[in-house]
């Protein structure tokens, strides 16, 4: 329907965004690829020549590799499960008639505005510290021994911190989706004698499908790259070394840019596997 003229105009208008992103993707990517085939040690004089696939082999055969992949998946999966699960419940709750809905919404959305470094510092010191943290005080109050959160329940603690940051995001998208749900349909179902759980399962949940997909997609993009939360709390100890953090250790702590770049390429591959999977899901839902 669009004319040839408007088509070329459209291309022209898309060009800046596409070119910028292409550059933003390709330039560092090509440099990373280049470095990954080199022995590149800045503290030993920089570029020490080509080494073929050495860095790739070394990165995967290191004992830290598979645990880091699994830590990444556990954190991403755990946070997604918690934020989507609690998000749906919270959205339903917030959609009920109540007093002060506006204020409650403000309270719930607030963690989203807190920068990750601050939230990690606050949780680590003021809540999870086994001696002076609030949790320790609470546990002692009930006569229990304080939990050493960041060492004994390290992955769970990080999932908790990150979930706290992302729960508002999930809740708000899901809430907006619920609000658009056809009330009459729900009421009709109620008339027909459908139990609350049935109504939720057959009407609300399917309606939320699209919103859940979007939450999962956007959060995954951000969660794959979480760094500050780990850097501030455990520095990758106690099984919390994600792939991102492992690359950080290779590039910055060991100053082995070649090895780190190879790790970066693996991370890109992993991200793409997840991306293809997600995109399929979203692509389908976007067509609806």
């Amino acid at each position, binding site marked *: 329907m669009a004319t040839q003229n408007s088509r070329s105009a459209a291309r022209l208008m898309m060009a800046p965004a596409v070119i910028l992103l292409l550059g933003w993707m390709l330039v560092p990517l090509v440099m990373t690829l280049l470095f990954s085939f080199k022995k590149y040690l800045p503290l030993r004089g920089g570029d020490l020549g080509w080494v073929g696939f050495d860095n790739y082999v070394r990165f995967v055969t290191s004992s830290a590799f598979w645990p880091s992949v699994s830590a990444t998946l556990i954190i991403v999966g755990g946070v997604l499960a918690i934020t989507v699960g609690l998000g749906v419940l919270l959205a339903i709750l917030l959609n009920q008639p109540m007093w002060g809905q506006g204020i409650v919404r403000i309270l719930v959305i607030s963690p989203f505005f807190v920068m990750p470094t601050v939230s990690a510092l606050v949780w680590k010191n003021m809540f999870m510290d086994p001696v002076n943290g609030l949790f320790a005080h609470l546990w002692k109050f009930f006569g229990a021994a304080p939990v*050493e959160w960041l*060492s004994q329940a390290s992955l769970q603690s990080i999932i908790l911190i990150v979930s706290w940051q992302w729960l508002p995001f999930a809740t708000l998208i899901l809430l907006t989706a619920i609000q658009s749900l056809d009330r009459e349909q729900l009421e009709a179902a109620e008339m027909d004698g459908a139990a609350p759980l049935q109504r939720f399962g057959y009407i609300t949940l399917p309606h939320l499908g699209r919103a859940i997909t979007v939450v999962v997609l956007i959060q995954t993009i951000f969660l794959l790259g979480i760094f500050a939360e780990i850097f501030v709390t455990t520095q990758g*100890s106690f099984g919390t070394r994600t792939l991102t953090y492992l690359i950080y250790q290779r590039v910055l702590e060991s100053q*082995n840019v070649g090895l780190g770049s190879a790790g970066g390429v693996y991370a890109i591959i992993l991200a793409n596997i997840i991306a293809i999977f997600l995109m399929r899901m979203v692509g389908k839902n976007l067509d609806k």
Partner: protein
Amino acid sequence: MSQIKSLYAATAISALSATGAFAETTVTIATVNNGDMIRMQGLASEFEAQHPDIKLEWVTLEENVLRQRVTQDVAAKGGQFDVMTIGTYEVPIWGQQGWLVSLNDMSDEWDADDLLPAIRDGLTVDGELYAAPFYGESSMVMYRKDLMEKAGLEMPEAPTWEFIQEAAAAMTDKENEIYGICLRGKAGWGENMAFLTAMANSFGARWFDENWQPELNGPEWTEAVNFYMDLMQNYGPPGASTNGFNENLSLFQQGKCGMWIDATVAASFVTNPDDSTVADQVGFALAPDNGLGPRGNWLWAWSLAVPAGSDATEEAKSFIEWATSKEYTAMVAEKEGWANVPPGTRTSLYENAEYQEAAPFAEMTLSSINAADPKNPSVKPVPYTGVQFVAIPEFAGIATQVGQEISAALAGQQTVEEALEKAQALTLDEIEAAGY
């Protein structure tokens, strides 16, 4: 034509010098957020008053972030900083690479000969001094006199590890949240591994043999780490695997530790009645030994250096000269009291009667610093220098990962033997990758 050119050049030069007379040179200083540095930042307005043409820009960062930032910048030659706060680990490596400006030409009043020899040696490469020490430290035992007395024991001036264990057992009173001993458990080459490497030295352990073969799963390391583990698990505070210097300091100040083996600079914090609830009950002793010769104490100096490629080298040097001078020490003494001056860098400070009076820990600090030998840290010969570190570029990365394994063992997630096997494997891997 050439006349025009030279005329133009002349004008340009005069224009340049004209603006130069009024322009401020900015010196960007990267520093760590330790108390002494924060104090220096507060006093730096004095320096700016003396040098109206120099403007100081501060980048104050937490230690881990600072290390990452300055290493990245110096390695990639970013040139963002004119003065960097670095330690005895970085200076020899960076100096060797030619990344630092030599400070041999500091003025006579600055008096390089007054620097403590052990500290000065650690900052010198091939006769060139590459960094000026701001404060120096070793490690020693800090203990609670009242608790020691209650336990019916007396701390010798130079205790053995065996005695430390006995005392820790006697002082521990978990009901009342008093833990016999607080040691670093938080993973990191500058955290638990600094302590453990120094401790392992006194057990005769070393990181590498003369052929750069790691010895982490050898009998000496195993013995040392098991001893440490036993101390911490029986007499240490909860959550020890995440405690670093700061966490332990806070525990000690709250009166929850019987003994604490850590940096000598902590002495002035734990004896400061404003922050410490046990200020008048703290005693000091040399770091423990195991009868083999070396004691388990380290040597470190937070120092100021100028990266090569700084566009304000002279200005940066004059700032460093000010910050590490005797006059600066005198100024801090006048404003904040002698106990708060940056310790561990100059002989003259330890000969100062006023300082000795105000700082009961002065003598022990000096003996601890003098007892450390970076060239011969352990019983057996080593191919590297450094007491609590190995001065090679790869060490920070290796030791942080080793530290994480040991930290995980301390948290009960694996045994000491498993941790050391993994440590040995990853060290071997990294050292091969670096081409030894």
